[in-house]
C-alpha cells in the first residue's frame, strides 16, 4: 500500500469518471474495455481492480448504479455520473492538468530561466 498504489487508485477513479462522462451510462466491463482502448493499449488493466474503485466512487456519491440490459441482451449493472460526480470530474481534471503542466515544466529541457 505504498504511494504508487494511491496515485494509481486516484488516476483510475479519474479515468472511470471521464469514461462514463464520455460514453454515458456504462457497465463495468464496458468501462474496462474503454479505458484500455483509450490508453492505446498502453495500460495493462486487471479488470477486477475496477470493481472496488467503482464501489468507492458509488459510496462517495460520484456515481450511481442501476441494473439494465446490455447491447447484447445481457443483464448488467450500469453506472452513471451524478451531479457530484460531474463536479468532481471537473475539479480533478483541473488538478491533473495543473499537475501535469507543472511536471512537464520540470521534465522538459529548461528554456531560458530569464
Amino acid at each position, binding site marked *: 500500500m505504498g504511494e504508487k498504489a494511491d496515485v494509481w487508485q486516484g488516476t483510475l477513479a479519474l479515468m472511470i469518471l471521464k469514461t462514463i462522462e464520455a460514453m454515458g451510462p456504462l*457497465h*463495468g*466491463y*464496458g468501462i474496462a*474495455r474503454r479505458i484500455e482502448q483509450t490508453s492505446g493499449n498502453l495500460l495493462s488493466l*486487471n*479488470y*477486477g*481492480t475496477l*470493481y*472496488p474503485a467503482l*464501489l*468507492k466512487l*458509488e*459510496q*462517495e*456519491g*460520484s456515481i450511481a448504479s442501476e441494473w439494465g440490459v*446490455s447491447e*447484447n441482451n*445481457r*443483464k*448488467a*449493472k450500469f453506472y452513471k455520473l451524478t451531479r457530484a460526480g460531474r463536479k468532481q470530474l471537473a475539479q480533478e481534471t483541473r488538478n491533473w492538468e495543473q499537475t501535469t503542466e507543472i511536471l512537464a515544466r520540470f521534465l522538459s529541457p529548461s528554456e531560458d530561466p530569464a
Partner: protein
Amino acid sequence: MKPLRAWVFRLAALFTNKQRERQLSDELESHLQMHVDDNIRAGMTPAEARRHAILKLGGVEPTKEAYRDRSTLPFIEHLLQDVRFAIRQLRKNPGFTCVAVLMLALGICASVSIFAFVDAALIKPLPYPNPTRLVSVFENSAAFPHANLSYPDYLDWKRLSKVFRSLDVYTGTGFLLSTPAGVEPVPATRVSDGFFRTLGVTPMLGRNFHAGEDLAGSPNTVILSYASWRKRFGGKKDVIGQTIRLSDVPYTIVGVLPRNFQFAPRGRAEFWITLRFTMPKEFRRSFHSLSGIARLKDGVSVQAASADVKTIAKQLEKQYPESNRGQGASVFPFADLVVGHIRPILLVLLGGAGLLLLIACMNVTSLLLVRSESRRREIAVRNALGASTGRLTSQFVTEALVLVTMGSALGVLSANWTVQLPTKLIPADMMAAMPFLLGLGLNARVLAFAGAISLFAAVLFSLTPTAHLAVSEMRDGLAEGSRGSAGNTWRRLGSKLVTAELAVAVVLLVGAGLLGKSLHLLLHVDLGFQPDHLATVAVAGPETRYGEPAQAVALGRRIVSRIETMPGVKSAAITSLLPVSYNGHTDWIRFVGRPYNGEHNEVNQRDVSSSYFTTLGAKLLRGRYFTDAEDASKPRVVVINQALARQYFPGENPIGKQFGDTALSPKSIKQIIGVVDDIKEGSLDSKIWPAVYYPFNQSPDPYFSVVVRTSQAPQSLLPALSAVIRQSHPDVGVFDETTVDNLIHDSQTAYLHRSSAWLVGGFAAVALLLSVIGLYGVVAYSVSQRTREIGVRMALGAERGAVYQLILKEAARLTAVGIVIGLVCAMAAGAFLNALLFGVRSWDIPTLAAVAALLGFFAILASFIPARRAASINPVDALRSE
C-alpha cells in the same frame, strides 16, 4: 464530507451482507459473460474464452475479496465475526456462561449500588451553591464537642469574626396547627435573618427574610416549605400575604421555598420563622440553643476559620468568665454534620462490595483458565490452520468483552433496581434527615464507575487466556492427551487464586461477624430499665392555655390518671425527654457547702413524674423516689443517677446533700432524696452521663412524653392511647405514638448498625459461597488431571483412604493458607472497621475462631466431593483412559 459519506455507506453495508454478495456475483458473472461473448467473437473456443476472461479479471475470488474489503469496514467485520463466534462459544457452554455472567453481575451490582450511595452521600451531599464553603460553627465544652451557641455569643462572633462572609443560626421549634382532623403538631425552624442567603437559597415565591427581621418587635412572618405549601395551601400562588395561625398566633406568609430545597438537620420543618427572641433566658450567655452555619470567605480554610473562632472564644471567656468558662469553639465542614455519621459505614460497605467484586472476578478468571485449558486443542488447530496469534488473541478479547458486557448490563440493571430500595425501605423520619439519598440513582458518575470496573474486568479476562496462550506451546496442544508444563502452571496459578479468594472471604466474614456481634451487643446493652411492654406518646399543650406552671401540672396529672384507667395499662408516667434519645438538654449544677471555682458541672436534666421510675422498671439504689404531692408548694427535691453519685460523691452518701444553679440562688436549691441506677438517656452506643431527675410537678412544661407500662402487647394499645388523650383534651397535640422497643430498634444508631451488619453479612455469605465454589473447581480440576497418577497409585496398592488423604490434604493446605492470610488481613483491616464496632475489638478471638472454623468446614465439604470421585476411580479404567 465524501469520506464521511463513504463511511456511513460502509457501516450500513455491514447489515446487508447477503444481498450485496448476490449482486456482486451477478455483476461479475455478467462481466465474464460479456467478455466471453467478445472473446468468442474474436475466435476463441468457449473454454479458452472463459479462461482468458477470468485471467483478465484477475480471478473471481480475489476480486470479490478486494470488493468486500472496500464494501464494508474490515475490522468491524472481523469484530462482528468474533462476537458472533464468541456468542456461539458461550452458548455452547451455558453452564459456564451463566455462572460467569451471574458472578460478574453480582459483583458489579453490589459495587455499583454501594457506589451510588457513596456518590449521593459523600461526593455531592449538599444541594447548595459552593457547598464546600459552608461550615457548621459550634461552641464546645468538656462534655459537648459540638455544643450549641448562645444568642449573645452568636452576636459577638458575628461582630468579631473576620473569616465568615456570613454567619447565621437556626434552632428547632414546633407549632400546633388546628386542622379539621384535630390539633396537629408541626415541626418548624427558627432562623436568623440571613439564614437562607448563607445557604444560597432564594424562595420560589415571595421574598426572603429582610435584614433585621429576626429582632424582637418585628412582625410575625413565615416562609413555607414547598411540601407544606402543596399540602396545606393546595399550591396556590396567592398565599403570599395571607395569614396563618401557628399555635394560635397569627403569622403572615411572605415566601415559599423551592421544591428542591433540603436542609438535613431540620428535614421535616414545614414553617420557617425568624428568631425574634423575647424571653429573658434567651438572652443569657449560658443558654445554648442555636446551631451555627456560616459561609467562609473565599480563600479561608476551615482550619483558619477554626483558629479565628477559637481566638474569639478565648476573648469572650476572659470577658464573661461566669458563663463562658471553658467554652471553646470549632468549625467543621457542614457536610460532616449531614453525612459524618454514615461516612464510615459507607466506606466499609464500599470496601466490602469491592472485595466481593474481587472474588467474583477471581472466580471468573479461574473458570476462564479451566476453559482455555480445555480449549487448547481447538486453539492449536485454529493456529495450525492459519489463524495468527493476533487473531486468536482478538478472539479471546472479544469473548471477554461479550462476557463482561452481559455481566455489566445485568449488574447495572439490577443495581438500578437496588438503589431504589432505600427510598422504600428507610422510614420517612430517617429519610428526612438524609435528604441527599433522594438524589440516589445511576447518574453519569455512577455509570462512569460501572464502566471503569467493567473495563477492569474486561482487561483481566482478556489477559488471562492470552497469557495462558503464551505459556502453552501451540504445538503441544495438538499432541494427543498431552499434559505438559502448561497444566501445572495453571494448577499453580489456580491454587494461588483460590488462596486469595479464601483470604478475601475470611476478611468479609470477619467483618460481618464483628458487625453482627456489635449489633447484638448494641441491642442488648444494659439500659437500666425494662424496655418491653412500654408504649409512649408525645403531648404538646398550647402555651396560651397551659403556659402557666400550675396549668401544665394539672394537664399532666389529668392525662396520667385518665390513661391509668384504661384496660391493659399498669401504670403511666411523664418525662420531658424519653430515654435512649440523646445526651443533652443539660443543667449546670453547683453543690452547696463545697468550694466552687466556676467550673461547669454539666448534667443531663430530665423532668419526670413521680411514677416514672416504677413505670420504666428502673432500679432504686438509695433513698426514695419523689411523690406526686411534691409540687411547687413543697421543698425542691431531686433524684440523681448512679453516675452522678459516683462522680461527685465518691465514697459518700449523697442522700440529703444539696445543689443549686451556678449562683446558688435560693429558689434553685434542691435536696437529693434518691439515687437511681443509670438509665441510658443517650443513644444505644453512648456513654452514661451524670443525670438529675427533677419532679415534673416542680419543673413543669406543657410539652412532654407519656410513658405507659402495659400488660398486653404495647403496640396494640397505641391507637386507643392517642384516642383517649385526644378525646379528653381536644386542644392538645398528640403525636409520635410508638413503643419503646420500636424506638430503640428503629433508632438511627440501631438502624445504621443493623443495615451495615446485614449488608456486610450478605456480602460475606456470597463471598463464602464463591470462594468455596472456587476451591471446589481447583480441587476437581486437579483430580481430573491426576486421574492416571491416582490410577497408578491404586494399582500399586494405595488404599482408598490414602487417596482421600491425598486430595483432602491438598485442599486443606490451600484452605489453611487462605485462612491464615485472611485472618492477618482481617486484623489489619480491623482498624478501618473500629469506628463501626460496639463492644468488640477488631481482634475478637471468638469471632476469628468461628470464621476460621466455618470456612474450614465448608472448604472440606467442598473438596470432599472431588476426593470421593478420586477414591472411586477404577485403576484399570484410569490407566486405559489415556
